[in-house]
């Protein structure tokens, strides 16, 4: 069994939890304004993680995810306000809404569930869209939700909003929620659904061609994202104690977008780091705006410096660090020692050609055996279907390994037997030495060492560079020269014709005698 994804996932979880806990433990001794800032930062962590679950994994920039925060905030807020307060503040409210009341934390959960249900319903028409159309449609959804909340007087109390929402007492629940959100996002992105979604982000057409139901994976992420963001919205309502439609509108969208983009769009570590980093910067800029003493100097910036600073940071990140401050990598550094341990253990031994991986049991080996090649299907699906156990020992396994048509890989001289991973099982030319292939256990560095190893082969060997060249030349000479490749009709046809080769010195001497070097350029 391959434990590496598990260990890496644990590493990411531990590092992010520590980051969150630092923010949460700071809450106790902090001043009152700082406490609000810290709670707000934790809410932003939850919201950005929720935003990341859909946007980061699917690559579809949805500007409408904040509307699920709105749904969660209103549902959670309405449930948390006491019936007596509701009856006095909004007499026009339907009776069942007035009587509905739960504890604040249950209200948050129900808010999240409501947002999830809303996302499930919305996903029916919306999930087919991708690219620009998806971004614009989701933006329109944000507008529609905003207009409805701003005008639906009976339930949302219109522009004046909800008031009297019970305030958050302490930060423990928020801390637990943030860690749970990180765990959910991590589990999702390590699951087969998450990996298929990432595959569709990297190359939509290829993922579809390989049989990934992109819409289904996207829908799962969409609903999960809405659930997490709904919870964040409900917490936001309980942090502020009052809720107006503008709270969760374009400014909040921009804020969360900045956090994700600055942190690193395609990694969970980026989402968490980005939201904490931007919260920190926001707080610093807020203090500058309010006026603060720094090294004996009283610094006081003009009003609005906070937003301008954030916008500048986002723009600079986009231009200079397009992958964000984490370079869109996960914090897997804690897993490095374990990784090395596992890799050492699974290095191929002379009596163990598969490197911990039982070659004779592999589906490829079964396919290659003449008896079973007819009965077995020729398509194997590794990361999506139930053959996951079959590539666990393979050191090259990663989520991009998708179902691939199997060819019989040539048995390698002195190397590992057929390995079922994606690259090894591609149609391989017989003259290629097995360690030439990328990611092979013996190819330590992909290209350079492969070249060295090939040069160290005996001269007659099929993997030797000279043999490779001869083979290529024969192949070219044997095939018909395409009309476009025959550049000079009055000259004998080049036996190894390729347009580039004509420019080589030997060829010029042999076939282009009399024509000066620069003549071709002048034509």
């Amino acid at each position, binding site marked *: 069994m391959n434990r590496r994804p598990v260990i890496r996932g644990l590493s990411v979880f531990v590092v992010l939890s520590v980051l969150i806990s630092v923010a949460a433990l700071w809450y106790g001794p902090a001043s009152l304004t700082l406490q609000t800032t810290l709670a707000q930062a934790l809410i932003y962590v939850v919201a950005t993680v929720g935003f990341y679950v859909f946007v980061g994994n699917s690559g579809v920039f949805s500007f409408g995810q904040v509307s699920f925060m709105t749904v969660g905030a209103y549902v959670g807020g309405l449930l948390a306000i006491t019936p007596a307060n509701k009856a006095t503040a909004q007499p026009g409210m339907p009776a069942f809404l007035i009587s509905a009341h739960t504890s604040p934390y249950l209200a948050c959960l129900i808010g999240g569930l409501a947002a999830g249900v809303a996302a499930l319903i919305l996903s029916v028409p919306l999930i087919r869209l991708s*690219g620009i159309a998806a971004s614009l449609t989701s933006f329109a*959804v944000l507008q529609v939700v905003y*207009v409805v909340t701003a005008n639906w007087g009976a339930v949302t109390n219109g522009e004046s909003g909800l008031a009297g929402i019970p305030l958050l007492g302490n930060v423990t629940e928020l801390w637990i929620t943030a860690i749970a959100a990180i765990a959910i996002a991590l589990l999702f992105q390590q699951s087969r659904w998450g990996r298929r979604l990432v595959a569709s982000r990297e190359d939509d057409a290829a993922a579809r061609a390989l049989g990934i139901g992109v819409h289904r994976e996207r829908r799962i992420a969409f609903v999960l994202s809405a659930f997490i963001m709904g919870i964040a919205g409900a917490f936001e309502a309980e942090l502020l104690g009052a809720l107006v439609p503008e709270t969760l509108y374009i400014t909040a969208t921009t804020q969360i977008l900045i956090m994700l983009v600055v942190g690193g769009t395609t990694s969970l570590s980026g989402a968490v780091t980005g939201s904490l980093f931007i919260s920190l910067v926001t707080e610093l800029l807020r203090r500058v705006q309010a006026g603060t003493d720094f090294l004996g100097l009283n610094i006081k910036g003009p009003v609005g410096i906070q*937003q*301008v600073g954030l916008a500048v940071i986002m*723009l600079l990140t986009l231009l200079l660090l397009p992958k964000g401050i984490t370079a869109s990598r996960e914090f897997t550094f804690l897993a490095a020692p374990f990784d090395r341990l596992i890799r050492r253990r699974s290095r191929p031994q002379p009596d163990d050609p598969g490197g911990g991986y039982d070659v004779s049991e592999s589906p490829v080996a079964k396919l290659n055996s003449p008896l079973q090649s007819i009965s077995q299907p020729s398509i194997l699906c590794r990361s999506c279907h139930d053959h996951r156990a079959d590539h666990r020992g393979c050191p090259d396994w990663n989520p991009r390994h998708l179902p691939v048509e199997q060819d019989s890989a040539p048995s390698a001289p002195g190397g590992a037997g057929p390995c079922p991973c994606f690259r090894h099982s591609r149609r391989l030319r017989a003259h290629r030495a097995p360690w030439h292939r990328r990611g092979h256990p013996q190819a330590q560095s992909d290209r350079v060492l492969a070249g060295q190893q090939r040069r160290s082969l005996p001269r007659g060997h099929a993997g030797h560079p000279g043999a490779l060249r001869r083979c290529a030349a024969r192949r070219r000479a044997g095939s018909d020269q395409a009309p476009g490749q025959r550049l000079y009709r009055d000259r004998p046809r080049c036996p190894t014709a390729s347009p580039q080769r004509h420019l080589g010195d030997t060829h010029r001497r042999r076939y282009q005698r009399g024509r000066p070097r620069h003549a071709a350029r002048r034509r």
Partner: protein
Amino acid sequence: VTTFFQQLVNAVTLGSIYALLGIGISLIFGIMRLVNFAQGELVMVGAYGATIVQHRSWLIILLVTLATPIVFALAMERIAFRPIRQANDATLLVTSFAVSYLLQNVALLIFSGTPRSINLAPALDESVRAAGLVIPKLDFATVAATAVLLVALSLFLARTRLGLHMRAAAEDFTTARLLGVRANRVIAAAFAISGLLCGVAGYLQVSQTGQVFPTMGLDSILVAFIATTLGGLGSLPGAVAGGYLLGVISAFMGGYLPSNLSVYSDAFAYLFVIIVLITRPAGLITPRTARSRV
């Protein structure tokens, strides 16, 4: 019947402004597949430019309102969009979002959030009464300016070398570059034109509303979006058609919806956009070049 025609006049006036804004977005989208969120802020900088020189003669006001957006458009192209021209659509979109946010907040920083009132064209305040209709002179000016700009733009695209380059770039940017079209020049020209259109649209809009505030770009960018997506992103006739369609929809919804529903008229407009995008993701009129290739 009079109400109907009155609403029609409103619809055509609104639609003209929307069409101008939509063309700017469509022009840039056609060439570099960027939906420029920051275009609304061009309207805003033009309007603030006008407030700075508001006590000068009307000609100076007009020139400043038109020139400021062009300068800002060229600057944002050079500083923000040129370095990441090769990035994917989503990154471009987010970048334009960031530029928009930046400009908005810089305006907030400099001019503060309180709206400023300004009367740009006092000469056009009067109305003409004819056959029971009341038509402000400004509406005539709006429609005339739009018509002149549309004709000028189509002549520019059809007859000049730069226009030809622009159409070629919109059709296939890579091939156009291989054939000698200067990428920087074409894109800068597209930004300059969109800046000019925003300037005109901003001038007309501010003449009508008389208010200038930092987030005023948001409203105009949203309607421009709806107009372009209705018409088909990247299609200039589509943007014009979408602009007028949106003008008709919003004018008649404002005029005819019962009052308890009319507060939701924006929501209905966006709902319409959502439905169009779901059924035809590339818009109602799809240019050949906008179809996605694998």
